[in-house]
């Protein structure tokens, strides 16, 4: 017989878990006690929300569920924002929370929170474990549910007495959930219709979303587009699905996207959406899509199809599978007129490198930064103006662009970068954030130092909550309220207090040299860039 806590650790090991991001407390003490004897590495974060974000960054790079763990009550509620963030972006997580003893449930005892209830809208599924015998099966199911179909966070709430119960451990068999059988392969009839529609179209266009990464279909997407000669635009979550410098890539679409990408959408006669939700941010108005545009929508989640745009050919399945199926069917190669037109428009776009009277030029800066970083670097963008500057101007060649697209959660970048770096220590990982968001997650510098995580941090300092200030300027007659960050500390001094080398620049003249110094430095480095508070997003 072993204890429930032993069974949890053993089950996690069986799932191949190598790292857990967490924060302890009384109701997870039995589990921590056993975890200390396991090979699984525990990363102590400085706030539970960041355990979830770090697990998310880890999952996105590792292509398997990230695991985070907190105590009951406030530990669990602190995790909710991270669960919501992962849920909106379909990131697989397994979150384990401690819970008060099961015989006390519902009595509002110390540090009890109904977390399965509170997190219900933000989880793909959740479990409240009532008996230790169920643990091996539940943990196996949780990893299965989190990582298959449309991925998402799964919560396992485990009362402290269940962690101490004894059980006879048996390895669970194959997961077989009657109500849960995601469709992977595309329907053969629909594949034929796709090919026919492509053959009949003059200006086909692919719109790639985050689903490309979930399906690990970057290679297939590139092959497919090149084989048939179809240009590509992406949503923010789809940035990097094909290299941003690829001749067929026309840029990110949407409210903050490139004009040519948006124009391409309205001119195309066949839009092939792959793993993209096309939310309000992505397509300003569905009216932006041309009246005669036919839409093929490929998604693993049937509930997404037709949600925001009406669809001509719906195809449910895994993007990787479906692209492979379409490629093996007969499809003609398209002429180069339409891709050529977009290519020549794209070649005329000049990234804004103009010097500013005050501070650096953030658009040119992020372009320069991502250009100087290794080809396969991982770029974590936070939320705010800095996210828009990054999304529109950075170069993702063979690496990844990680950001909180659906929820727009400030404070995502640094913990996500920590997770990404631990998932792939050979990659250079950079987090770019505003001075507002930095003050939401700067405590994680402690985590970085404690665990020797080597990431590069760039803080765009405008002393304002820039994006909100911009909204107030444009839509509220410049009535600036509650966006001034006066009182903020000297950020380089904060970094130095942690022993992290830091530097501040306020001119593009030194940008290249400062970036080079940051890249050269072995270990974490923080670069503060002064930005004019009136710099606009677009």
């Amino acid at each position: 017989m072993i204890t429930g806590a032993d069974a949890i650790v053993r089950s996690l090991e069986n799932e191949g878990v190598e790292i857990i991001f967490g924060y302890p407390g009384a109701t997870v003490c039995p589990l921590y006690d056993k975890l200390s004897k396991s090979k699984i590495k525990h990363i102590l974060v400085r706030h539970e929300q960041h355990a979830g974000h770090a697990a998310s960054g880890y999952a996105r790079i590792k292509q398997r569920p990230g695991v985070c763990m907190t105590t009951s009550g406030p530990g669990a509620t602190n995790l909710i924002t991270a669960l919501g963030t992962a849920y909106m972006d379909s990131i697989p997580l397994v979150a384990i929370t401690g819970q008060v003893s099961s015989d006390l449930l519902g009595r509002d005892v110390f540090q009890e929170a109904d977390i399965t209830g509170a997190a219900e809208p933000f989880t793909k599924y959740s479990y409240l474990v009532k008996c230790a015998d169920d643990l091996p099966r539940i943990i196996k199911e949780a990893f299965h549910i989190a990582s298959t179909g449309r991925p998402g966070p799964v919560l396992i709430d485990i009362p402290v007495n269940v962690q101490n119960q004894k059980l006879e451990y048996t390895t669970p068999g194959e997961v077989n959930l009657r109500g849960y059988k995601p469709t992977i392969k595309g329907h053969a009839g629909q594949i034929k219709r796709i090919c026919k529609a492509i053959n009949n179209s003059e200006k086909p266009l692919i719109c790639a979303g985050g689903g490309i990464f979930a399906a690990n279909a970057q290679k297939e997407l590139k092959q497919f587009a090149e084989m048939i000669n179809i240009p590509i635009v992406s949503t923010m979550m789809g940035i990097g699905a094909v290299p941003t410098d690829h001749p067929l890539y026309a840029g990110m679409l949407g409210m903050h996207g490139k004009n040519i990408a948006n124009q391409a959408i309205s001119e195309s006669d066949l839009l092939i959406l792959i793993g993209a939700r096309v939310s309000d941010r992505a397509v300003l108005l569905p009216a932006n899509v041309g009246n005669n545009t036919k839409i093929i929508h490929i998604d693993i989640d049937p509930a997404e199809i037709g949600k925001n745009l009406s669809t001509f050919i719906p195809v449910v399945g895994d993007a990787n599978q479906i692209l492979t199926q379409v490629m093996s069917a007969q499809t003609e190669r398209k002429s180069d007129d339409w891709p050529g037109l977009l290519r020549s428009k794209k070649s005329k776009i000049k990234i804004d490198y103009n010097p500013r009277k005050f501070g650096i030029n953030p658009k040119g800066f992020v372009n320069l930064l991502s250009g100087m970083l290794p080809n396969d670097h991982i770029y974590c963008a936070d939320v705010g103006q800095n996210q828009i500057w990054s999304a529109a101007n950075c170069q993702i060649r063979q690496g990844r662009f990680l950001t909180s697209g659906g929820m727009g959660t400030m404070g995502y970048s640094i913990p996500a970068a920590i997770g990404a770096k631990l998932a792939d220590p050979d990659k250079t990982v950079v987090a770019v954030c505003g001075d507002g968001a930095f003050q939401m997650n700067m405590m994680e510098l402690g985590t970085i130092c404690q665990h020797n995580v080597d990431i590069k941090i760039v803080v765009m300092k405008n002393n304002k909550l820039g994006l909100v200030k911009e909204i107030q300027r444009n839509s509220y007659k410049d009535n600036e309220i509650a966006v001034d960050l006066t009182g903020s500390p000297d950020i380089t001094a904060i970094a130095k207090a942690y022993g992290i080398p830091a530097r501040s620049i306020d001119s593009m003249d030194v940008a290249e040299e400062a970036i080079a110094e940051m890249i050269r430095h072995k270990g974490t480095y923080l670069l503060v860039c002064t930005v004019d508070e009136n710099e606009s997003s677009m």
Partner: protein
Amino acid sequence: MKHVLSALVNNTPGVTSRVSGLFRRRGYNIDSFIGSSTEDERFSRLTIVVQGDDIVIAQVLSQLEKLEDIISIEDIRPESMISKVLLFIKVKAEVADRLSIIVVANACNARVIEMSKDYLILEALDTEDRISDMIEVFKPYGIIELVKTGVVAMKR
């Protein structure tokens, strides 16, 4: 012990999830949960059957009473209520078995409502215990599928 709770609630979205949430918090499984409109369109009637410790149920009841949307709620004692369950049951009916199934059905007050060459569908309206017994009686023939409503109850 088994409890039959009868609640009069506001007829608004979200009521059922608030009510069921209080049971979920305790880790209780609800046996049956029926909601329907009433003589007054502003209100709905929920009839909930749940197994649980008497003290805990009493506590959940007082927490439920606090909810804005609950007009009244009561744990009805078996002797002071009438209650019924509706059952549809699809039973395998080989030619050789048909007559015997119909005889048994008659004896249990169940009606044949559909027939095909392979099966019969029966309908019965009775107390929960008698419906459970009935299901046992039909098991030997082979039950293809069954569906029943939860308990609907009214105070005498």
